[in-house]
């Protein structure tokens, strides 16, 4: 089968690998939609490490979002050949308290699927086929496209969990920091729940997308009076709930200052550092901070229901499609920032 290897800074190639074979509860999924996430930074930096730092360090773990069709099973289980499924990210033990409560993303004993199955490839989503334990596959309802269903991964996932955790409703004003694919997903999730949405962003292409998806305003975090602008839009109070998707200090700082007292902040953007003054920053403001990565498996029916009802907005946020052979072109596009969510269709 065809898959991808990063070969240096802004350099990659399509490589041929043996297709994986099903074993135990690992099934083989033929990938129809593999959304791009943050792997373009690995491509940019010539980083050959695995996406999932905690687990498998194998360089061919490129791509962790996918939807496709089950083509091989080794034993009777939760899915059968022909099932259309969303492939959840990562490989997890399925036994620990986190896995059992649907929070598998926090599992501390992730297995290596290649060793488990004796396969050379099959961990990556930027490929024609991948391996996945059957309990990490979500059935796709009839009538829902692979592209839309695949948004249950990072397209909507971290944003969805932020909304679930902060119990966002029509009574909230949600400040979304960042208008990249994850931030745009947060606009979709928050407007779906009836909330007023204000975004922070600096990319005109994505500002247009955010406004089209229902954001009331997109403000520049570098404006000196950005906090005042947010207060003006919220009756002087500030946002009741915020989602930080950038990992940049500039954005985080606005979020912490423009979220109202007793408000909540979900932190989704990785990699950043933020100096937090405990008293003024949290205690005197009564803020609650949540670290959000993926979402709880038990919420799958709610996630699929939401996807079914926001189809039009998903068509807006998914701006580009590429075949697997053109993944380099897709990564180059991501580097320009002139895109929403980009999907590889192997």
């Amino acid at each position, binding site marked *: 089968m065809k898959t991808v290897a990063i070969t240096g800074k802004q350099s990659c190639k399509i490589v041929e690998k043996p297709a994986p074979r099903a074993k135990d509860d690992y099934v083989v999924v033929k990938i129809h939609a593999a959304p791009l996430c943050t792997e373009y930074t690995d491509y940019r930096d010539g980083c050959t490490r695995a996406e999932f730092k905690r687990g498998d360090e194998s360089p061919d773990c490129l791509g962790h979002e996918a939807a496709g069709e089950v083509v091989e099973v080794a034993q009777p289980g939760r899915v059968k050949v022909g099932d259309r499924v969303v492939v959840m990210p990562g490989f997890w033990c399925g036994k620990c308290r986190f896995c059992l409560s649907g929070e598998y993303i926090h599992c501390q004993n992730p297995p290596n699927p290649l060793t488990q199955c004796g396969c050379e490839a099959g961990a990556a989503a930027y490929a024609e086929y991948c391996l996945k334990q059957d309990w990490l596959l979500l059935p796709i309802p009839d009538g829902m496209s692979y592209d839309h269903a695949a948004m249950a991964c990072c397209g909507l996932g971290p944003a969805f969990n932020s909304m679930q955790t902060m119990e966002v*409703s*029509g*009574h909230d004003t949600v400040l979304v920091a960042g208008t990249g694919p994850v931030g745009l997903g947060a606009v979709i999730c928050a407007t*779906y*729940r009836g909330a007023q949405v204000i975004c922070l962003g600096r990319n005109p292409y994505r500002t247009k997308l955010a406004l089209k998806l229902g954001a009331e305003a997109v403000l520049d975090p570098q404006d000196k009076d950005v906090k005042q602008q947010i207060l003006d839009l919220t009756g002087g109070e500030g946002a009741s709930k915020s989602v930080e998707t950038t990992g940049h200090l500039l954005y985080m700082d606005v979020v912490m200052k423009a979220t109202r007292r007793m408000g909540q902040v979900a932190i989704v953007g990785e990699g950043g550092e933020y100096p937090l003054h405990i008293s003024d920053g949290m205690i005197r403001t009564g803020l609650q901070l949540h670290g959000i990565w993926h979402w709880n498996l038990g919420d799958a029916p709610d996630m699929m229901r*939401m996807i079914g009802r926001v189809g039009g907005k998903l068509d807006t946020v998914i701006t580009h499609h590429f075949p697997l052979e053109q993944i380099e072109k897709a990564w180059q596009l991501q580097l320009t920032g002139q895109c929403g969510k980009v999907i590889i269709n192997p």
Partner: protein
Amino acid sequence: MKQAVMGGPGGAGVEKVSDPRIADNYAKVKVFSAPLCTEFKHRAREKSGGFGHEAAGEVVEIGPKVRSVAVGDRVVVMPQNACGICPLCTSGEHIYCQSGRKPLKICGSETGCDTVAQYVIQQDWLLVKIPDGIPYDHASMACCGFGPAFNAMQSMEVTAGDTVLVSGLGPVGLGAVTVALYRGARVLGLDPNAYRRDLAKQLGADAVFNPLDEDIKQQVLAATKGLGPDKSVDSTGVQSSVQLLLAVARRRGRVALIQSVDSISTQPVVWKGLRLYGCWHWNHLNDTERMMHTIAGSAERIDKMITHRFPMEKLSEAFDLQVSGQCGKVIIHPWEA
């Protein structure tokens, strides 16, 4: 002032009475919108007198201990004469207060406790301020128009993605439809009255059903992929309605009761793991902001939900209309001729 009274020709009329007096923490409110609730059901009663427990208006005079409102404030008047001291009152659940006050005695007033009148009196902490831009008629939905339904939605944590079944599409049920839609839920309605089914549909209900249909249970299940609604509200107080809601509820679903019924079989409650909520009024200390968001964000729907407005002199006509069932929420304007 003028005040509506039960009795007399037509079953209801208007009387001239003394203006109410205030003292202590009571404020005098000039009533601009007095929504009608279930009073029409009592029009034939022998005892005559004032009535009404819903109102919105302007504060025109305040007692010496009033702190939270000022003359000129636009307010919604919360019902009941609660003590303000017990844990229920101080947590915003004053509707359940067990040691009510006697406002007429405290204020030395002969009038002021009935809202279908030109003036009413109430304690300052039971007056909810109306944000700019919300008209009195809309704000008055914070009484029974939205109140019990809002509490039901808060209690059941109704949110986007939920399918909510509302049984009874009278004024309270239509309020439930509106509040659920504001929260992004999908709404189904039940009522034998075609006028009200149509009104619910206009508000945005996804589907409406006649509960008298023989296959009503199958119809509701068919509209919910065979699973039943996530959450349901009964505003009828009819035994068969509550029993139907329990029968079609999804496993682990939630059901809010706004009207009481004498007896129901709780069997489905146990084997389906249902949660039942009794909802009367709403918590105005915790949720005023959310209530006012809901009202401001539902303006177009409220205009559809309020089908009729009458001056006080035409009360009898308003009652006739309510008896006919060919209406949504009906509002009396005490200062209009």
